[in-house]
C-alpha cells in the first residue's frame, strides 16, 4: 500500500473512504468521522467515569479525568478570568477533540482527523465565530473599537484598522494551518521513514542493518509525535482562551 512500484506514497494515508457500508457512502460518513465519534466516545467515557466514581480519593482513571478538567479550568481561569467560567466547557471540548484526534492518530491503522485542513479549519472557524459572537454580545457596537487601539494617533487609522482586521481574520488561518501542518508533517515523516525501513530491508544481506537507521529515526519520531500531539492540543486550547480573553475584555 505504501510502496507502489519504487515510489514512496506518503499521502494515501490521508485519503478518505466511507465507512458503515452503503449508509456511510450515502451520507459521506468517512473513517475520519468515525474516529471523531471514537474521540467523543472516549472523552465522554473518561469524564462520565470520573463523575460516576466521584471518590474522595480518586483512582487512576478518575485522577486522569480530574487533571484534564483542572488543567483546562486553570487555563481558562488564568487567561480569561472568572468571566470565562461559562466558556470553559467549550474550551475543554476543543482541547479534548484535538487531543484525542492527535493521540488516536498515533495508533496503528488509525486515521488522524486533525491532519485534514477541512477539519482544523472548521474547528478554527467554530472558535472564531464563537469568540466574535461572544464579543459582540458582551460589548455590542463597542466591540469594533477593538480594531483601533485607544490612544493611537487618529491619522494612523487607515493603516492600523486594516492591519487589525486582517490579523483578526488571520486567526482562523493560523489556528487551523498550525495544527494541520504539524500533524501532516509528522505523519508524512513517519510514513516516509517507515517506507525506507521496508525498501532498505529488502537490500539482501546488508538490508536489515541499513534499515535499522530509519527504524531508529521512526522510534524517535513516535516519541516526538506524542509530544506534538499534546503540544498542539495545548496550543489550540490556549489560543482559544486568549481569543476569549480578548472577546471578554477587549485588549
Amino acid at each position, binding site marked *: 500500500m505504501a510502496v507502489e512500484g519504487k515510489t514512496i506514497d506518503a499521502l494515501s494515508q490521508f*485519503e478518505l473512504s466511507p465507512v458503515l457500508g452503503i449508509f456511510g457512502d450515502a451520507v459521506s460518513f468517512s473513517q475520519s468521522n468515525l474516529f471523531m465519534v471514537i474521540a467523543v466516545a472516549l472523552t465522554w467515557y473518561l469524564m462520565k467515569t470520573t463523575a460516576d466514581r466521584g471518590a474522595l480519593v480518586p483512582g487512576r482513571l478518575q485522577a486522569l479525568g480530574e487533571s484534564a478538567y483542572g488543567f483546562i479550568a486553570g487555563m481558562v481561569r488564568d487567561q480569561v478570568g472568572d468571566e470565562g467560567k461559562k466558556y470553559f466547557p467549550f474550551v475543554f*471540548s476543543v482541547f479534548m477533540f484535538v487531543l484525542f484526534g492527535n493521540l488516536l492518530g498515533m495508533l496503528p491503522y488509525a486515521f488522524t482527523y486533525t491532519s485534514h*485542513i477541512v477539519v482544523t479549519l472548521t474547528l478554527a472557524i467554530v472558535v472564531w465565530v464563537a469568540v466574535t459572537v461572544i464579543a459582540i454580545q458582551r460589548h455590542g457596537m463597542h466591540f469594533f473599537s477593538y480594531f483601533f487601539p485607544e490612544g493611537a494617533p487618529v491619522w494612523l487609522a487607515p493603516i492600523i484598522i486594516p492591519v487589525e482586521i486582517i490579523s483578526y481574520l488571520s486567526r482562523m488561518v493560523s489556528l487551523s494551518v498550525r495544527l494541520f501542518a504539524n500533524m501532516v508533517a509528522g505523519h508524512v515523516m513517519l510514513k516516509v521513514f517507515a517506507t525506507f525501513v521496508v525498501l532498505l530491508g529488502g537490500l539482501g544481506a546488508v538490508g536489515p542493518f541499513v534499515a535499522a537507521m530509519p527504524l531508529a529515526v521512526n522510534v524517535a519520531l513516535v516519541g516526538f509525535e506524542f509530544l506534538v500531539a499534546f503540544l498542539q492540543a495545548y496550543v489550540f486550547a490556549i489560543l482559544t482562551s486568549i481569543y476569549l480573553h480578548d472577546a471578554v475584555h477587549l485588549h
Partner: protein
Amino acid sequence: MRRVFVLAAATATLPAMAFAASSSAVPVDGMPQLAFGHPTQGRLLVGQMVWQLIIFAALVFLMAKIALPRVGAVIEERHRRITADLEAAQAAKLEADIAMAAHRAASEQARAEARAAVATALHQAQAASDAKAAEVNARITAQIAEAEARIDAARASAMGAIRGVATDTAEALVSRLTGAADRAKVEAAVGRVLAASGRA
C-alpha cells in the same frame, strides 16, 4: 480486564477500516486533504466537515450539560470536604488549647491549694506542738516547784526535829554526866550551836 478486551477488539477491527482507505477507483492527485475536485474525495471532504460539526456539537453538549458539571461537583465536593475538615480540625485544636489552658490553670490552682494546705498543716502542727511543749513545761515547772516546796517542808520539819533530838540528846547527856540538867539552858545552847552552824 474488560478494558483490555475492548482494546483488543478495537485493534482487531481497525485494520479493516484502514485497508478500505485506498480503495478509491480514481487516483488522487496531490494532497487528499485538498482534493475537492475528486469525484469521491470531494464529496467525502464536505461530508467530513458536516459530520464534524454535528459530532463536535454533540461533544460540546455532552460536556457542557452533563459531564463537566458533574465532575466539577465532585471536585467542589472534595474541596468543600477538605475545607470543612480543616475547619473542624482548627476548631478541635482551639478546643484542645482551651482545655489544655484550663487543665494547666486547674493544676496550678491545685498545686497552690496543696501548698497552702501543707503550710497550714505545718503551722497547726507547729502550734500544737508548741502548745504541748508549753503545757509540759508548765507541768514540769509546777512539779519542780511542788517538789522543792516539799523538800523545803521536809527540810524544815527535819530541822525542827534536829533541834528536838539535839536538845533531848544533850539533856540526856548532861543529866547522865551531871545528874541534872536545866532544860532551858540546854535548849539555849543547842539553839546557839545550830545558829552557829547555820542550820537554824
